[in-house]
């Protein structure tokens, strides 16, 4: 088609999907919120760094063969006194490159965060929909369980679940399942707010006539919940999911910092901070500072994104 002679003015190209998306309200509001743009860049960089950690990291911190104990406690950007090796962010007591451990730690922190939020979302949305749509005793049971759970701090619930799960797994498997137990603990401690929001929104949508119309034409409860109500209650869920992600990452770090989260063989950012704080008073500040700064930047960026999303999706604040 390209080499056909052009006659007259070409018809204006139909706006493509990309063009439409670029012009949509949400993207427009995003483009005009510098904080959100910076946050998204930070989060994207961190996710990419975590995904491609094995390719980016200069050292493999989990391969004892490459570790040289002589490299221990090398300060950032200074050649080691014995070996002459230089590390961007220094090394810890065992000579592990802090930059590499942060990349691998980020990987675990983000993985746990995403999976825990996914679990909490699936659980919370399902239970919230059932409670809101079916009502009656189903509603009572689900929401009372939620209320009870809400009276405890989430971290306490997570510790309880973590402890029970550890207790029932055989000792030789503990390190392998540790990450999954962590996801389970954080996910189960965080479903309540999803359930509450979805239930509330479901109650509103349920009374709308289009739901009555769907009931009238003979659609079953399941079909109505999935096809008609679920899509209409998702936008508040999106906001909570983002803010939950930040909370889940911090919860994971807290558990790991307390020494009951990710094991030292698979250190997350929280584990790294725990290891690092032991050296703070002896002057090796970099072992603590860099993982902590990474965690802070990640949690802050995700939170700011969530804040922006909440404002952007709220028609009253538009």
């Amino acid at each position, binding site marked *: 088609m390209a080499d056909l002679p052009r006659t007259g003015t070409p018809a204006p190209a139909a706006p493509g999907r990309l063009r439409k998306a670029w012009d949509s309200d949400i993207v427009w509001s995003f483009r005009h919120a510098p904080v959100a743009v910076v946050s998204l860049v930070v989060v994207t960089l961190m996710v990419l760094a975590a995904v491609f950690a094995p390719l980016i990291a200069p050292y493999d911190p989990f391969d004892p063969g490459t570790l040289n104990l002589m490299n221990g406690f090398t300060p950032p950007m200074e050649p080691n006194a014995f070996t002459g090796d230089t590390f961007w962010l220094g090394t810890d007591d065992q000579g592990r490159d802090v930059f590499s451990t942060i990349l691998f730690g980020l990987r675990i922190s983000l993985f746990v965060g995403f999976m825990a939020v996914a679990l909490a979302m699936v659980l919370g949305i399902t239970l919230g929909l059932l409670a809101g749509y079916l009502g009656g005793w189903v509603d009572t049971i689900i929401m009372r369980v939620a209320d009870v759970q809400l009276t405890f701090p989430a971290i306490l619930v997570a510790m309880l679940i973590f402890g029970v799960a550890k207790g029932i797994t055989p000792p030789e498997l503990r390190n392998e399942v540790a990450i999954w137990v962590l996801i389970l603990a954080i996910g189960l401690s965080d479903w309540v707010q999803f359930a509450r929001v979805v239930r509330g929104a479901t109650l509103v949508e349920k009374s709308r006539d289009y739901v009555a119309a*769907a009931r*009238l*034409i*003979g659609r079953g409860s399941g079909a109505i919940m999935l096809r008609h109500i679920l899509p209409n209650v998702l936008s508040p869920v999106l906001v909570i999911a983002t803010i939950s992600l930040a909370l889940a990452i911090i919860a994971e770090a807290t558990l790991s910092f307390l020494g009951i989260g990710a094991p030292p063989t698979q250190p997350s950012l929280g584990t790294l901070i725990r290891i690092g704080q032991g050296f703070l008073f002896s002057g090796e500040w970099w072992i603590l500072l860099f993982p902590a700064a990474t965690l802070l930047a990640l949690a802050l960026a995700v939170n700011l994104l969530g804040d922006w999303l909440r404002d952007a999706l709220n028609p009253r604040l538009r």
Partner: protein
Amino acid sequence: MAPVLSLRNLTVEIPTRHGVLRPVDSVSYDIVAGEILGVVGESGAGKSMAGNAVIGLLNRPARITGGEVWLNGARIDNLPPEGLRKLRGKRIGMVFQDPLTSLNPLLTVGDQIAETILEHLPVSRAEARERAIAALEEVGIPAARDRVDSYPHAFSGGMRQRVVIALALCAEPDLVIADEPTTALDVSVQAQIIVLLKRLCRERGTAVMLVTHDMGVIAEAADRVAVMYAGRLAEIGPVADVIQHPRHPYTAGLMGSTPGASQGQARLTQIPGAMPRLDAMPPGCAFHPRCPRRGPGCDIDPPPVRAPDARAACHYPLTVAEDVTA
């Protein structure tokens, strides 16, 4: 002709801590194919509740406690939920009051119509889509083929109500229940919607239960009218007769309080008092405390509708000599 819909002494009750409320009390009427029955009354008279009872969409704790609902010669009020679910969608269509909430905002209008068609007619997805386009054309949506993939927010209120009518009629029901279909619309659009509904139902021979509190709509569209008061039927008859020669004092009061072009600047009459609360129903005729014609016995016996000539549920109905209008 056998009626499409037949209510026999239909009673709906809501148990509360202050006793049992009866929003619909022994209501009986028939609608034949192609006929439009207007159901009028004040807010809370039980008009919508009766409609919801017919389609089985009563919300707990309201439930049918007496009487029968017959659809095409089959009794439907005592069907198990699954049987009723299958039947009502196919046989009964519904036009809701507010076109803003009666369409799912996140599905295209075509998808919503096709969903209904697929649920009830043995057609393929592609054919359901073609039928959806045809249905939209039929209700007067311009460029239906281009608009079938639009979302409800892209339609104006009147156009949306047209879509809702297409939705109600697409599965070829025998009965359409229109619950205040024009209340949320502009006056100029109301007439269009009523004319459309009337024409489509006439063409297909669909029976219509038109629930409204707007006497103008009734006069325009209905063949017969049923006047409800406090959950009971006050009067039922051909629309011209009821409007021009009301027999029940309540109907007469209702007509007197409806503004009309002929009255000019004259003051509208009011019916003194208010409709009784459902938990404080007077004994006997529910209207007697407000009735200008009450006499002995009104506060003792609830009057029945005596068919066929005396169509009003009143011990002392208005007579021909007392006709209010003309």
